[in-house]
């Protein structure tokens, strides 16, 4: 009885089964054969990344398929995280593959802004009313008196994809917790104020100025500019003064009594701490801002 039912069912079902069997088997055969005959050699790293990807070829990353994304992400690590289906886990694997490429030796480089003048510290000659971009403003002579200091229109802020930069009170300031050391900001600054410095320590001592004006001019332009007096160089041989500007050799920098002394001796207090370990970059309260309320003059 049951047997008859089963037989009945079988008789109506077997063609479908065979059909699919032949289709499945046929394709398996053809594909296996083809994958051997038509193999193309690819970069093992691309292969590695490709394998880490979900292989959905869904196009969510904006590329034609996983293979293309694998290639692209290898060339441009900024695309990391583009694979939505794979999510964070996949990105982590890719990041692993990518990092094999960058043979990183020495401490990580992080940006340091070589200016410490906030809005109130600077002298302005004129009111700039153009494109709100440092590059545009820098192309015009003397938008602010100091030709070397931070313009504060934030080209670097816009360049940072990680939101690590801000410009409170007109001075570009790095949030080292967010910074990945990608160098985008240092490339963006038209005044080359942002230098990628090997951070050997949690905080780095910095001469936060780039002005090579004479002391008199610097004084007239900026309350916190380096006047090249050379007091720091007298304390520590890590400092040197040329063209009215003190410089610190970051490569050789180690914290010591001498450097501390140099910092405390600096008459304009332009030697400051920068870095994740620095408490709020030296900025002696708000008095400066008040003092220099009407800094502009003709």
């Amino acid at each position, binding site marked *: 009885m049951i047997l008859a039912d089963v037989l009945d069912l079988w008789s109506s079902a077997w063609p479908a089964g065979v059909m699919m069997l032949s289709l499945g088997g046929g394709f398996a055969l053809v594909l296996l054969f083809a994958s051997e005959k038509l193999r193309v050699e690819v970069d093992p790293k691309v292969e590695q990344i490709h394998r880490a990807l979900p292989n959905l070829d869904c196009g969510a990353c904006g590329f034609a398929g996983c293979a293309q994304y694998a290639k692209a992400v290898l060339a441009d690590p900024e695309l990391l995280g583009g694979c939505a289906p794979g999510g964070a886990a996949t990105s982590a694997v890719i990041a692993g593959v990518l990092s094999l490429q960058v043979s990183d030796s020495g401490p990580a480089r992080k940006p340091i802004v070589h200016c410490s003048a906030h809005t109130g510290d600077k002298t302005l*000659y*004129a*009111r*700039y*009313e*153009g*494109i709100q971009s440092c590059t*545009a403003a820098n*192309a*015009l002579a003397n*938008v602010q008196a100091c030709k070397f200091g931070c313009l504060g229109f934030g080209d670097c802020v816009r360049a940072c994809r990680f939101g690590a930069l801000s410009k409170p009170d007109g001075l570009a300031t790095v949030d080292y917790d967010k910074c990945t050391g990608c160098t985008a900001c240092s490339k963006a600054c038209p005044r080359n104020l942002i230098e990628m410095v090997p951070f050997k320590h949690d905080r780095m001592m910095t001469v936060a100025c780039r002005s090579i004006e004479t002391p008199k001019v610097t004084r007239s332009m900026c309350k916190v500019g380096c006047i090249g007096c050379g007091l720091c160089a007298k304390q520590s041989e890590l400092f040197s003064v040329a063209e009215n500007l003190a410089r610190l050799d970051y490569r050789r920098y180690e914290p010591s009594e001498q450097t501390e002394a140099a910092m405390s001796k600096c008459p304009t207090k332009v030697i400051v701490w920068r870095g994740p370990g620095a408490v709020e970059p030296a900025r002696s309260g708000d008095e400066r801002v008040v003092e220099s309320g009407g800094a502009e003059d*003709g």
Partner: protein
Amino acid sequence: MLSDIKVSCSPHISGPLSTRRVMVDVIVALLFPMAAAGYYFRIHAVILIGTCVVSCAAAEWLCCAIRRKPSTLDDFSAVVTGILLALSLPPRIPAWAAVVGSVFAIAIGKMVFGGLGANVFNPAMVGRAFLTASFGMLMTTWTTPATLDPNMSRIDRGNIIAAREHVIRGRTQATPLAWSKMAIKRRLGGETYDDQFFAATVTGEVGGCLGETSAIALLMGGAYLLIRRTIGFHIPLAVLLSAFVFAGAAYLKDSWTYVHPFFHLTSGGLLLGAFFIATDPVTAPLTRRGMWIFGLGVGTLTMLIRIVGEYPEGVMYAVLLMNAVTPLIDRLFRSVPVGGKPNV
């Protein structure tokens, strides 16, 4: 001496034109068709234009407020959108529908793309297209001009509902284009089109959208824009020319069925579209060559829809379709710098 020096990039002087001036010019030009609308549709014109302008402005203000951006009402582009939307709606469309259309036009047609200048599609036409898709009934219910039907000037709110009940008895008025559609179906277009009909479409004493009926008023408005150089002649000319050629070809092929090309020029939204809608700078190509192509496309598609398609009127769809390809036109007909492409 100088206590406040200003600096900025060159140039340090600039021409007299401003966005607001451009928009005000368009509004001035639109006074002609608005006056015609007022004459033929009386109080309905006032209500409809008022509703659309106010709700477009309100929608724009609201969108700016939501994005916490300064309001952009003072460039008057929302007013232009409002007026053009109103002029392209049936005169007695209920106010709530006009509000829905206006809000849609501004919010979806314009502000989501980033506001003035960023929108891909003509906002007024987006609003109208949404109304057409949503409320087909309201968008195909026409009104006789007041000069033909003295009862027109009364507002009776029940009218639309009444119309719905009477629908089966064919009480609502058709437009010249609906007539032409029937003419094509019955194959007697050339037969029944006469001077009197032509005269009616020129003066505007026919049914249709609020601002589209009077060819003469539209031509005057268009002339004003051309004289003020608010628009170039390229787009209107290309639209009208291609429409004329298309209609003419059909007419030559079978003058019994297809109506005379003059009819197509003077009736429906073609003139409104050619002078005021296809010329919207934001959604038209930038280059002269691009404008020719664009106008050609609008004219041809309009006639294609009118003659081959099933909708009686095609200006709106033609404009929207050409808006969509405007970026491609701009790219294909990109201006080549003087002296050829630099070999960088």
